[in-house]
């Protein structure tokens, strides 16, 4: 039952008993519909309905809504593990589910760079800690890295917070179009190179795209830093039934690897510091444009 159906049922003439029960249950699970009903009551009766002062505490939406921004880039498993109360609340509260769904969509647009440049500069990427085997430390970059295969060449179109991105040199012809189109504030930003530091490490990684065709792209991975740690670099393709290793290189202190012929799909790039038993993972997606 939608919010609209719920109100139409409750405020309509003689609703069927089953529909009315369903609508009452919807309100009891939806602080937004309750707010509407409560205002109507106050307008009609010049008084709050009995028990209305307890509803805020009984719903408990305030604290959940305050924390939604913290969950936007967490997986279901992380939300269940770190915020079990919030997860339980979101499983049954219609108002908070709707609001969280909208926040997820807005954050996805922000991660894709569709909302313009970030307002707040970050010092480095944020990393989450997925489950790892005992003695292993795994850090996964938070946010989305997207490569789009475009007519004018492949480009990064979404970059996680804290990644430094260098713009793509766009040929003049690519900017042709109406003045309105050129000035659109939400125009996709295109980058050829991204660079990021690894958490708790002196290493940094630079990814540079090397366009090959409309269907394929090459990527140079350059790992550098201080000291001479023993490193392994892995590239996996993520598939619904697991992942397959596409490339593995070992190096000391850093190095440069060119990966050719990457096609649209989901990938996991991994830098392993062997002495530290530490792995950093960055997921990225290659998209084909229509």
């Amino acid at each position: 039952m939608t919010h609209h159906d719920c109100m139409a049922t409750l405020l309509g003439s003689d609703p069927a008993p089953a529909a009315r029960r369903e609508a009452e249950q919807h309100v009891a699970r939806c602080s937004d519909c309750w707010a509407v009903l409560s205002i109507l009551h106050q307008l009609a009766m010049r008084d709050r309905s009995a028990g209305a002062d307890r509803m805020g505490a009984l719903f408990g939406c305030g604290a959940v809504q305050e924390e939604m921004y913290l969950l936007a880039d967490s997986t279901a498993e992380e939300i269940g593990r770190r915020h079990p109360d919030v997860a339980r609340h979101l499983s049954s509260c219609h108002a908070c589910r709707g609001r969280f769904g909208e926040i997820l969509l807005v954050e996805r647009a922000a991660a894709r760079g569709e909302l313009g440049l970030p307002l707040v500069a970050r010092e480095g990427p944020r990393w989450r800690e997925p489950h790892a085997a005992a003695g292993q430390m795994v850090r996964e970059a938070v946010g989305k890295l997207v490569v789009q295969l475009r007519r004018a060449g492949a480009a990064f179109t979404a970059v996680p917070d804290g990644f430094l991105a260098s713009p793509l040199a766009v040929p003049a012809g690519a900017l042709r179009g109406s003045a309105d189109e050129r000035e659109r504030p939400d125009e996709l930003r295109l980058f050829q190179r991204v660079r990021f530091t690894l958490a708790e490490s002196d290493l940094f990684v630079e990814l540079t795209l090397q366009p090959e065709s409309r269907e394929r792209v090459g990527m140079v991975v350059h790992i550098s830093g201080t000291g001479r740690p023993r490193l392994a670099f892995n590239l996996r393709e993520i598939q619904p039934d697991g992942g397959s290793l596409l490339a593995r290189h070992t190096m000391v202190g850093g190095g440069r690897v060119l990966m050719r012929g990457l096609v649209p799909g989901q990938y996991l790039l991994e830098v392993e510091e062997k002495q530290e038993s530490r792995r950093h993972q960055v997921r990225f997606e290659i998209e084909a444009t229509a």
Partner: protein
Amino acid sequence: MLRSAQSRAPDPRLGEVLEAFRRHWMTIARKRYPRLRDDVEDAVQAALMKLVSADRLAHLKDPGRLEAWARSIFVHSVIDVAREGGRHRTGRIYLGEADEDPEQLLRERLPADRPGPEDVAAFHERLEIVRRCIQNLDVARLRFLEDVPEKEIAARQNLTRDAVAGQLKRIRRGLRIALRDAE
């Protein structure tokens, strides 16, 4: 810098920062809430007030995620404004893209969870309060919109005639006060 808004000497860059947030939110509104039109300004103003409120800032658990926090404040403000304007009841306020099914996204991003005993108890308590509230509204609707006699209202609502008369008396008194206030 945001905290300084409540001080006697706000940070000189505060105005510029708030303007940057306002522009960012207007970009979100253009993309996702074009149907709200003029109400977007109300949502932006409400969100700016929350952004510099000491109480809200005290709840900012991860200052490194200020921008996402501010966006969530704006989204909640938009939904509140839409709800107050009745749009919440009459349909979606945002423009969804073809690949944007929030329920699908929620199923992917939320663990499958069941309410615990405390949640169930709270739900039943809320349900009782909701039923009482609706019963009061029913009496007003039946009498003033549908012109149903008090005796029949009592029978339909399973109330005594005195209880119906008492409720209607309170409603009339409320209306008189409201009309006097309006004058």
